[in-house]
């Protein structure tokens, strides 16, 4: 804890360097695949909703009717699930958006495992708490609605 001993701290061993690189590439790939997949689903859902509702293209409505609080779109996981079974565009969009939100969550889950394997207790705990907070966010949103 003295101010001068920091220079002499050991650096992590070399073999962990290779493992660290592998983890970096895994994280990088995970993020890229997550973003591309989810936005593809979002685009598909948007397209399907216009195919199902041709009137969307020519029948005007107040912007606020679509975008005000209380506008009709699937909100709960249950509604999204039922909507997807009926191939409803908006529900598929919601699945895509959900996948997008899940992408960083997956990344944190990977980090927890990474630190646990390396036996870094502090960082395992830190990332595990972050993961718990992310999962808690869904519960919090429902309670605070």
């Amino acid at each position, binding site marked *: *804890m003295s101010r001068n*001993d*920091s220079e002499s*701290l050991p650096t*992590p061993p070399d073999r962990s360097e290779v493992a660290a690189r592998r983890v*970096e*590439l895994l*994280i*990088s*790939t995970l*993020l890229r695949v997550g*973003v591309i997949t*989810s*936005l593809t689903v*979002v*685009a598909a*859902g*948007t397209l399907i909703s*216009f195919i199902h*509702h041709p009137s*969307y*293209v*020519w029948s*005007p*409505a*107040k*912007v*606020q009717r*679509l*975008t005000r*609080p209380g506008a009709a*779109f699937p909100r*709960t996981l249950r509604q999204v699930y039922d909507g997807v079974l009926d191939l409803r565009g*908006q529900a598929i*969009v919601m699945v895509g*958006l*959900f996948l*997008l*939100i*899940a*992408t*960083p*969550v997956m*990344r*944190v889950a990977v*980090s927890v495992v990474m630190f646990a394997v390396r036996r870094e207790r502090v*960082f395992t705990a*830190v990332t595990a*708490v*972050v993961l718990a*907070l*992310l999962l*808690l*966010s*869904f*519960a*919090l*949103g*429902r309670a*605070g609605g």
Partner: protein
Amino acid sequence: MGGELMTPFELTIIEFGIALGAGLLGSLLGLGGGIIVVPALTLLLGIDIRFAIGASIVSVIATSSGAAAAYVRERMTNLRVAMLLELATTSGALSGAYLAGVVGGRWLYLIFGIVLAVSGVEMLRKQREPHPAPAPSDAWADRLQLHGQYFDAAAGREIAYRVGRVRLGFVLMYIAGVVSGLLGIGSGVLKVPAMDLAMRLPIKVSTATSNFMIGVTAAASAGVYFARGDIDPFVAAPVAMGVLIGATLGSRLLGRLQSLVIRIVFVLVLLGVSLEMLLKGLR
């Protein structure tokens, strides 16, 4: 303009266009798209600020994850600092997103106006101070092995750096998280200075690390907005796609805008929009 009649198709196209422009402009100026897209959606289209924020937070995840994927590959990101500070930003984001459901829309406009003004000042600051002062010794940074190195393309070699003032950085990151959750922006304008000014990370590492953390911070808020029903697919889908494509185009086609004149003009625009948001909050 808010009461205009529009078909859902037209609305989708216009939202997409606005988001594309916001993403493009954001990446050219080194800001996120959120800080541009929320005022554009609310002031131009009259969309409810909560839905604008819900759409923005989702687009923030897309752009930051896309950029982070590249930065991590280039080893520009300090993963240990990022994962430690994510503890602060996610707690902050949860508080902020929760608060956003409790406080009225008027407060959201006011706070957004203030953050826009701060962003304008921050953009001017980025022009100076390329070499931060060395970090004061920090016991936490030593114990958690936060120090790192990165390859600096301009210098053509690896540059090692030391991290300091971890606790101060942690507090600032909590605040950045609250703002992010409250306003649906990545709040990189607060995260970057927390790292380069307070913790003394090099500016390039600060930017890359901020980008990496923004995805997780935004996911925490997005979870709350999603569960609360504030993510409207009619707004969020075109906005997420538009901002991502705009930001990708911006980073691929052109470099960062270097001209001081353009930056100053943009800062003035930011301050103008800030004023507009403040007035809307006061009315």
